[in-house]
C-alpha cells in the first residue's frame, strides 16, 4: 500500500476571468521511506503539487490519498489535523518564529501533538537538535543563527513530531553549497534512520544527485519519473 497516492490531480487558479491551470492531471504513488525530488522549471507546478500533497490546498479535480485516507475533499479543520499529525514542512525561507529560541521553535511543533511531560518533551527536542547538529545552540534565537543553522532548526521542527511525510520546498535555495550539502545529508540520515518519507521540490542539481527518485514536472504534468538504485 502506498503512503501517498495521487490520481488525475488538477489545479486551476482563477485570475479574474482567466483560468490558469497549474496542474493538469498528475498521477503518482509514493511509498513509505522514499526520498523523492520533484524538479522542473519555474511555473511547472512544483510548489502547487507540494501544497496539494501537504494538505495546504485542495485540488480542483482528482483524488489524493495519504496513508489510505482520502484527503482531497476534507474540511479545513480535518486538513489542519492531518497536517498536524502526519506532515512536516521545511520551507525555503525557514519560517522560524523570531521571538522563540531554536529549542522553542522545535518545541512548538511537538507541543501541538504531544501532551507528554515537560521533561520527556525536552529530551525529545534536545535529541532532535543534536541529530541535526545544533547541540549547544539551543538557546539562540533565529537572528543569532546562520542560514544553514536556521534550516537545520526548521528540519528539526519538521521531524520532531515523527511525521510520516516531510515536504521540503526548495530547502537549499537560500543556502551556500556547503550548508546545502549538510542539510541534504541530515535529511538523508533521517530518511534512513527514521524511515521518514521525504519529498522535495528543487532546482538544485546537488539535491537531485542525492534523490533516489526524480520526478520531472513540466507544464503541470509529470514528464519523467526515474527511480535510482
Amino acid at each position, binding site marked *: 500500500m502506498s503512503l501517498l497516492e495521487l490520481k488525475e490531480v488538477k489545479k486551476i487558479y482563477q485570475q479574474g476571468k482567466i483560468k490558469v491551470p497549474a496542474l493538469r492531471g498528475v498521477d503518482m504513488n509514493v511509498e513509505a521511506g522514499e526520498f523523492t525530488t520533484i524538479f522542473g522549471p519555474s511555473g511547472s507546478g512544483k510548489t502547487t503539487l507540494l501544497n496539494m500533497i*501537504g494538505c*495546504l490546498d485542495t485540488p480542483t479535480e482528482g483524488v489524493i490519498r495519504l496513508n489510505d485516507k482520502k484527503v482531497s475533499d476534507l474540511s479545513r479543520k480535518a486538513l489542519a*489535523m492531518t*497536517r498536524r*499529525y502526519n506532515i512536516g514542512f521545511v520551507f525555503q525561507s525557514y*519560517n522560524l*518564529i*523570531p521571538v522563540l529560541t531554536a529549542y522553542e521553535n522545535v518545541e512548538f511543533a511537538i507541543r*501541538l501533538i504531544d501532551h507528554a511531560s515537560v521533561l520527556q518533551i525536552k529530551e525529545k527536542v534536545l535529541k532532535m537538535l543534536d541529530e541535526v547538529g545544533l547541540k549547544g545552540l539551543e538557546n539562540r534565537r533565529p537572528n543569532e543563527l546562520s542560514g544553514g543553522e536556521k534550516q537545520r532548526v526548521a528540519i528539526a521542527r519538521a521531524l520532531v513530531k515523527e511525521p510520516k511525510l516531510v515536504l521540503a520546498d526548495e530547502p537549499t535555495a537560500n543556502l551556500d553549497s556547503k550548508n546545502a550539502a549538510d542539510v541534504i545529508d541530515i535529511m538523508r540520515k533521517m530518511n534512513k534512520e527514521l524511515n521518514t518519507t521525504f519529498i522535495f521540490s528543487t532546482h538544485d542539481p546537488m539535491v537531485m544527485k542525492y534523490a533516489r527518485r526524480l520526478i520531472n514536472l513540466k507544464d503541470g504534468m509529470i514528464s519523467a519519473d526515474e527511480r535510482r538504485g
Partner: protein
Amino acid sequence: MFSFKLGLKNLTRQKRRNVITIFVIAFAFFSYLMMDSLMNGMEEMSFDNIKNYDTGNIQVSNPEYWEDRDELLLENLIDLNQDMEEGIKSTDGVLGVSPELRFKANLNNGIDEILVRGVGILVEQYNEVFATQNYIIEGSMFAPGESKAVIGVSLAELMDLKVSDYITLLIRTKEDTFNTIEIEIAGLVRAPNPMINNGIVFLPLEVAQEALNIGNEISLLSIKTVSGDEGIITRALADSFKDKELALSAYSWKESASSVIALSAAKKGGIGAILSIVLLIGMLGIINNVILSALERTEEIGMMKALGMREWEIVFVFMVEATGIGILGGLAGCLLGYAGVSAMVKYGFSLAYIGGDGSQYGIPILDKIYGAWNVPAFSFLFILGVAIAVFSSIFPSYWAAHKDPVKAIYHR
C-alpha cells in the same frame, strides 16, 4: 499553554509600536481618572459648601414660601416660637437649628448701590449650624446683642468697604414702605462658598425684624444634622409638623442645591462620554496593533497553519498579545492616574486657570477644586480596559487566522 507563551513573547516584538499603543491607552486611562477625580471632588466640595455655608442639612419653611424662596419675599413667613424650635431640636439626629430672615436690600456705601441678600441671624445658633465664622479674615463675627454686620470680602472689595465702616441697607418693609438699616461692619468673611462672599450681608435677626417691621417672623430655619441622615430626619420632621398641624415642611439640602445636582448629573453624562472616548481609543489602538502584527507576520501565520494549528489557536496567540498590551496599558494608566489623582487631591486645581472663582459657572467653590479618590473607578476602568482589549482583538485576530495558508506562506 505554548500558544500563551508565544503570545506573551510576541509582546517583545515591535517594541516601539507596542510601547506607543500602551502609552496611548495609559494616557487615555489617566485622562479619564483625572477627570473623574476632579468631577467627584467638585461634587463633594460643592455639596459640602452648600451644606456648611448656605442651607445646612435641612431647611424648614412654609411650603408656599419655599416655592418662591429665591424671590426673598416677606410673605408666608414663620412665626418663631420656642415650642416649635424645641420640637425641632429634640428630633433625633438634629445638631443645631438656626432661624434666618432673608430679605432683599440695596447696599449703599455713600457712592454706589448694589442689590444684596440680607440675612438676619441669631449668631450663637447660626454658629452651631454653619462654619462661616471660621472664615472671618478681618474683624470678627458680631456678638449676641451687638448691632453690627458681617459681609463677604468680595462684596467689600467691590464696594470699597472695610471693617468699622458703616453701610446703609435700603429695604422695603412688609407693608411696602421704604426703610433703612445703618450698621457698622464687624467683620469680613471669605468663605469657601463664593456665593457667601459675593452678595450677602449678615446682621442680627432682631435688627432685621425691627427694620422690616415683621415682629418675630423668620423666613426659614436651617438645621444641622448627622451627615447622611437627612432623609430620615426630614421625614421625621414632616411627620411631626403634620401631627402638630403646623403649616411647615422640611426640605433636604439637595432641594436647595438642585442646580448643582443638575450639574452633577450632567457631569455623569460627561464622564460617560469621556469613558466612551477612552475605550474607543483603546479599541482602535488594539485593533491597529493586531492588524499590523498580522500583516507583518503573514508568513508566520502560514507556517503555523502548516504545522496544523487551528484557527482558534492562532486567534488565541494574537489575543494573548493584545490582552497583554491592554493589561500593560491599563496598569500604566492606573499608575499614572494614581500619581495624578494623588497630586490633585493634595494640591488641587486652581480655578484661577479658568478665570476666577466657581460662582461664574454656578459652582459654589472659591479657589481650588480638590480631587477625590474613586477607587472603584480604577478597578472598573482596568477590568473594562482588559475586556475591551480582548473583545477588540477578536475580529482582527480571526481575520489574521483565517488567511489562506498557501497565500500566507508565499505572500511575498
